[in-house]
């Protein structure tokens, strides 16, 4: 593999590693304290299947293969509850490997992502799982996927990104070392969002072992949000990978800002960031205004292309002038 020439024998060789990290790009005009604070966005959408979830999906798939649950002759496919990105990565990897994939998707997921899952080769099962909030175990898509894996275990294996340590390991082995090397150890702040918590737990473990003073800042949307892939603070218990001891701060930010900041990033920095990145940027901005000094890395999970319908819903002005007048 020659990462300088960037010529590859298989798309799998593009999966990220310390030698082939996703790029970090400095934020300039939107940095509120440029004299003391260096702020980078780590562009996870430049992973081969378009999001940070490529890392977890690859680790989860290998975990199932190594345990013998998946593989030639197992006759099994993959079933997974997913708000989109994990599903897209998993479905593409499954197609590459020749496994069927059933994605259990909450209905609030934008149409673009559902269609992408199908393009990548997944079958969809769409669940209305926010009919009425119920305590604890009310997450319909997770429970339906678990039902398939339990009732039809001869047909389906479930990677379970919410519980499987392989999700954490992916970041311990790739994202962490990448950032350490890319910042030359100067990193002081990580800004990210919690969904499955795999990124936060893996990165937190790696970076805090290297440098205990690194601040892990989680930026979460307020309740009632529809920022795909994220959970508000009250929903975090769904993930067994959530380790609060690694998180120094959790900011709760009005979810509408996810959309306005994403568009600002596109128009000001040339970063075509999706809504979760917009939310993470807003959290970083607030912390930088307070801390003023440091080297921060924002984990930007994916780009804006999958979110045009979501953006129009929150920023109706985007839909004006897109039809001929009169």
């Amino acid at each position, binding site marked *: 593999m020659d990462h300088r020439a960037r010529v590859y024998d298989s798309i799998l060789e593009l999966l990220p590693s310390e030698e082939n990290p996703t790029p970090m790009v400095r934020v300039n005009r939107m940095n509120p304290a440029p004299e003391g604070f260096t702020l980078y966005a780590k562009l996870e959408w430049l992973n081969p299947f378009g999001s940070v979830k490529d890392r977890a999906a690859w680790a989860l798939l290998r975990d199932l293969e190594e345990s013998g649950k998946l593989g030639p002759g197992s006759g099994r496919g993959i079933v997974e509850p997913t708000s989109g990105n994990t599903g897209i990565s998993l479905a593409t990897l499954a197609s590459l490997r020749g496994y069927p994939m059933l994605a259990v998707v909450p209905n609030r997921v934008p149409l673009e992502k559902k269609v992408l899952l199908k393009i990548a080769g997944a079958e969809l099962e769409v669940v209305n799982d926010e009919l009425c909030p119920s305590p*604890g*175990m009310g997450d319909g898509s997770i*429970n339906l996927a678990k*039902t398939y894996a339990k*009732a039809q275990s001869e047909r389906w294996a479930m990677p379970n990104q919410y519980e499987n340590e392989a999700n954490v390991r992916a970041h311990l082995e790739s994202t962490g070392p990448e950032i350490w090397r890319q910042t030359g150890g100067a990193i002081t702040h990580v800004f990210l969002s919690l969904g499955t918590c795999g990124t936060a737990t893996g990165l937190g473990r790696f970076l805090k072992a290297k440098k205990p003073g690194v601040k892990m800042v989680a930026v979460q949307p307020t309740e009632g949000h529809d920022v795909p892939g994220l959970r508000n603070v009250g929903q975090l218990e769904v993930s067994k990978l959530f380790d609060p001891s690694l998180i120094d701060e959790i900011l709760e930010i009005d979810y509408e800002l996810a959309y306005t900041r994403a568009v600002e990033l596109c128009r000001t920095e040339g970063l075509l960031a999706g809504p979760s990145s917009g939310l993470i940027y807003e959290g970083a901005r607030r912390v930088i205004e307070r801390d003023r000094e440091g080297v921060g890395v924002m984990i930007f999970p994916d780009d804006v292309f999958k979110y045009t319908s979501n953006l129009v819903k929150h920023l109706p002005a985007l839909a004006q002038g897109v039809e001929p007048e009169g």
Partner: protein
Amino acid sequence: MADYAHPEVLVSTDWVKEHLDDPKVKLIEIDVDTQAYAAGHVPGAVGWNWQTQLQDAVRRDILSREELERLLGEAGVSPEDTVVLYGDNNNWFAAYGFWLLKLYGHPDVRLMDGGRVKWLNEDDKELTPEPPRVTPTSYESQGNSPELRAKLEDVRRVLVEHDQNLVDVRSPDEFTGKIIAPPGLPETAQRAGHIPGAKNVPWSTAVAPDGTFKSTAELERIYLQEAGVDPDRPTIAYCRIGERSSHTWFVLKYLLGLDQVRNYDGSWTEYGNLIGMPIER
């Protein structure tokens, strides 16, 4: 479960496992998510679809006595059987089924405490996609209990006489009129708010994080002390279309043992569409 007023109406997942082969115990799953049953269910359980099977297909009403008799017959149930209901979302629709069965007089109905999610997450419990083998019966209802159902005229009377508790089990946003219905639901109303004098206790408040019902002491604190439900008066529970409120109806009548608890199945989609009714926000 022993300290509930009527502990006999609840069974544990372990109890169900022990009775999987008991011919007098009939299991019925009713879910909000109508795909869940086909993906996998408790071995031997029959699945009912609340959208297509538990309401009148033409006019707005619960299903008729004859329709319930036919459903029970197709599920192989006899009047002397123990019917155990369970479902997703903490037995939300299972409780609705419980109310219907009681309304039409089935004597022994129970809920599986914790519902399908508790069963799903216990390692020693099996799930199967296989349809059960059922020997149909010809079921004849043994009577009925119309006093379990509140109708609009009952609610009107409470508005004049103020002699009953009204418990609104919808979310705080529906209760205060911020929204008319949770997003994406087709059944809605012209106006938002609640019936004057109603207390708001969202239905899911009665459930612990593992999906089982909270203890008697906690339920008494929530409904009687904090919400101010007067246990010496009759009570009417309502929600949007009358299913979430069957869950609270079950809690108030069987777990706390209040007298004269009724479910107003017309609920907000009836009340909030009427002209001239008083509404509080």
